[in-house]
């Protein structure tokens, strides 16, 4: 099948967006590489601390006027921004596929999810309202006002380069705050596009700034006294040991979404043919580079004899391996492709190390994704096919650690209690799913498991923009979560007024 047209031509050099201007960075440039074709499609600066400082200064300067701007006027900018995002929907989606590698359907899904957050944030004139009560004491009334906080830093991940920063930016802006965004330097162009569209939508200079770069920019954000809070999504070691810790030291509020190891439970009453598409999307969607991806597939023998459990397990394994082996892998701009490459060669090598570890620790490789079969003639650098381990366990390395690649680890649990115990032993708590028609089993999982996002007959429990994106244990550090009402709380400070007129 012919490829869709690539929107990025040549290898443009990205610039920072500070105080409403595109500014060339003094930092060195690094290549942005299309993981499917291995072509250099852009150059992104590694900006300096001084450049971050200048963005924060612009944001601090813009803040007093932006917070005084009526909420209705602020969200009119967001309405215009949403319309511009719709106009550029296809371009934005194809940029994600070129830079990240995900399929075009996945990219469009990500674009939509990002826009949905802008839509929800346009409700701020109602959503940001405080509350009041008369006569709390003699002739005394009391009320709460929700006020913006100041300047926030947003540090984006490589796996959802468009959507994740938009879990935060629209809410921050709508509530009257200013933002400095550091996109992932691996796939930075779509955040540059957000800045371009925001300017066109009339977001005033300094309210939204984009500074490209790496660790130096992140560290400068964490240290900067002018930044009141940090929004981060990335790995657990960075989220916990760097972002969360540093924010604690410097008194910043923080949302730090981190790693995951998500179990998907298959109960004996499921219709396997019906659930298989959901399982394929869960385990292999976004090439497994997703903090909600299914990773451990647990075949639960609740109510079955040992031999019945064995037979059920075999049936699940056979169906899963058959479906996984048929997934078409290639360049995501080919519309026939169902799974793209890993983001880069290093990430692929990391996944291969986990595959080797799984073999060493005794799991059986039922489908070896290292045997690469592609749709189209692409360099194999970052590609892997779906990989399925069977007869594994939750306690071997591939059952415990986050792989962040297209690898499934299938094993048995004799009953639901054992399956839940296995999940609880794992330090992560991002998501857990169950496939069943039995309400009691579903409720048990929902009630007992320490995970922030629960899927009931849903393999990828991704909350829509009106709901918080959950996360517990080592998968989340902070109190309030991204998206919806919790994001609004995060970006506002409650001021209580106790009033008496004499």
């Amino acid at each position, binding site marked *: 099948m012919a490829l869709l047209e690539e929107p990025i031509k040549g290898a443009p050099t990205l610039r920072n967006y500070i105080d409403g201007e595109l500014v060339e960075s003094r930092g060195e440039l690094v290549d942005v590489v299309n993981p499917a074709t291995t072509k250099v499609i852009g150059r992104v600066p590694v900006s300096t601390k001084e450049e971050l400082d200048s963005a924060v200064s612009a944001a601090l300067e813009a803040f007093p006027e932006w917070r005084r701007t009526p909420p209705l006027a602020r969200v009119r900018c967001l309405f215009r921004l949403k319309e511009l995002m719709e106009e550029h929907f296809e371009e934005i989606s194809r940029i994600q596929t070129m830079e990240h590698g995900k399929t075009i*359907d996945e990219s*469009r*899904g990500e674009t*939509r999810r990002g826009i949905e957050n802008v839509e929800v944030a346009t409700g701020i004139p109602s959503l940001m309202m405080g509350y009041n009560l008369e006569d709390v004491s003699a002739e005394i009334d009391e009320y709460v006002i929700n006020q913006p906080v100041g300047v926030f830093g947003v540090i984006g991940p490589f796996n959802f380069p468009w959507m994740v920063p938009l879990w935060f930016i629209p809410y921050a802006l709508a509530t009257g705050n200013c933002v400095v965004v550091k996109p992932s330097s691996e796939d930075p162009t779509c955040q540059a596009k957000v800045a371009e569209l925001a300017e066109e939508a009339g977001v005033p200079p300094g309210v939204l700034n984009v500074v490209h770069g790496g660790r130096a920019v992140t560290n400068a954000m964490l240290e900067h006294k002018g930044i009141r809070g940090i929004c981060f999504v990335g790995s657990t070691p960075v989220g916990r040991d760097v972002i969360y810790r540093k924010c604690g030291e410097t008194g910043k509020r923080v949302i730090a979404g981190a790693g995951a190891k998500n179990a998907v439970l298959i109960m004996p009453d499921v219709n396997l043919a019906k659930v298989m598409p*959901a399982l*394929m*999307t869960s385990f292999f969607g976004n090439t497994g580079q997703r903090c909600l991806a299914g990773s451990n597939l647990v075949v639960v023998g609740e109510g079955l004899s040992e031999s019945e459990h064995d037979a059920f397990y075999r049936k699940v394994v056979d169906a899963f391996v*058959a479906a996984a082996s048929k997934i078409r892998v290639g360049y995501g701009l080919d519309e026939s492709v*169902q799974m793209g490459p890993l983001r880069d060669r290093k990430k692929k090598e990391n996944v291969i190390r986990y595959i080797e570890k799984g073999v060493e620790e005794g799991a059986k490789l039922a489908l070896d994704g290292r045997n690469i079969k592609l749709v189209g003639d692409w360099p194999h650098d970052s590609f892997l096919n779906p990989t399925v381990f069977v007869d594994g366990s939750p306690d071997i390395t591939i059952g415990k650690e986050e792989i962040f690649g297209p690898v499934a680890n299938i094993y048995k649990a004799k009953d639901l209690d054992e399956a839940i115990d296995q999940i609880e032993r794992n330090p992560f708590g991002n998501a857990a799913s169950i496939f069943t028609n039995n309400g009691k089993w579903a409720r048990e999982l929902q009630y007992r498991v320490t995970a922030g996002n629960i899927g009931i007959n849903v393999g990828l429990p991704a909350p*829509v923009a009106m709901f918080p994106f959950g996360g517990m244990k080592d998968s989340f550090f902070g109190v309030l979560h991204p998206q919806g009402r919790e994001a609004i709380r995060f970006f506002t400070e409650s001021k209580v007024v106790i009033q008496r007129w004499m």
Partner: protein
Amino acid sequence: MEELGATASAVISFSEKLEESSSRFYEKLAATYPAHKDLFDSFARDGRKNRTLLVRTYQETVTDALETGYSFKGLELRSFVPDEQLQEGTGLKSALESAVALEKEAARFYTDISERSKTLLSTIPAAFKKVAENRRGRIQRLEALSSTP
């Protein structure tokens, strides 16, 4: 590989091309048979509305968390072969027969997709059903025209 079927993106691209080429077909008919220009032009305009409806529905409902990549199980787009070619010098009767054949194939395609997408958000099967009905409506009008002396 066919078990996992055509991606949502491939189905939408196919629909877009089908609507665009059908519109061009009717524009050509309108130019060739001025006595029926209004009817053929209205079909061409409808085609562009259909295209907008389908693309908008897809873009507004696609999310990374639904099983969009795997939704059209077993679908072979190659099995739908609408023919929008119109030979030079074709008489009206024969042109109308070609148009009816095109509409029947298009209606078959959209009905199939509507059925297959019933497990997705309701707006998706509804959009395909609406376009299938639009195409079937054209068949009646074309056949009525064909039987006019």
